[in-house]
């Protein structure tokens, strides 16, 4: 009889487990996955004027700034999504 009582008490103990819900880290927007152009514009020719050089430099700066915007956006996206993800897991 006492063994039955011990079994009864043992069965009252609770089990512990994790909540069976998995959180998926969100996908990054395609726009932020675009790679930067591999090659910057170079200046070719025998008689290149200061005007041609300035225009080439301007084009390359434009490429850099476009790339920088995407890079900054990627960092911002990651930080925001990490924060949201961590808040949801609390």
């Amino acid at each position, binding site marked *: 009889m006492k063994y039955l009582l011990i079994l009864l008490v043992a*069965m009252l103990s609770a089990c512990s487990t994790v*909540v069976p*819900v998995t959180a998926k880290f969100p996908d990054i*927007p395609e726009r932020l996955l675009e790679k930067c152009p591999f090659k910057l514009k*170079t200046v070719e020719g025998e008689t290149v004027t200061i005007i041609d050089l300035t*225009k080439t430099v301007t084009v390359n700066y434009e490429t850099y700034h*476009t790339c920088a915007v995407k890079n900054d956006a990627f960092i*911002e996206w990651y930080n925001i999504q990490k924060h*949201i993800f961590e808040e949801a897991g609390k």
Partner: protein
Amino acid sequence: MPEWVFHLMLAVGIAGTVAGFVLGFIPLISKYKLPIQICSLLILVLALYIEGGIANEQVWQARVKEVEAKLAKAEAKSQEENIKIVEKVVKKTEYIKTRGRDIITYIDKEVVKDKDVIKYIEQCPAIPQAILKAHNDAATMRNEVTK
């Protein structure tokens, strides 16, 4: 199996246990005291075990729903932020492209007419190749990194 079956089992178990242990003085019960005690205790143990399981399941289901609601909210917020970031990128990229075109146009229309620039080009019609090489090396240095 519906839950009420297990509630009924619990009630039967409790009633049987009470009858077996407390109401032993009643002649009908005293005759079957031991079988009633054993059976009712077994039913009580099983019913308690199942009741515990049901209660535990309900607690977990509630927690799952709570987490799912949190995740749905987070997902919506995440999508909202994605849209904001992409819109910002599109806006900034467009601005940079427009500014780049404007500057090129400005060079073609205004800078070429500038007296100092004209004077400079007359004195130095072509940029020395060494300077161009330095510029081109800087522009293509990424090739070196990927080698």
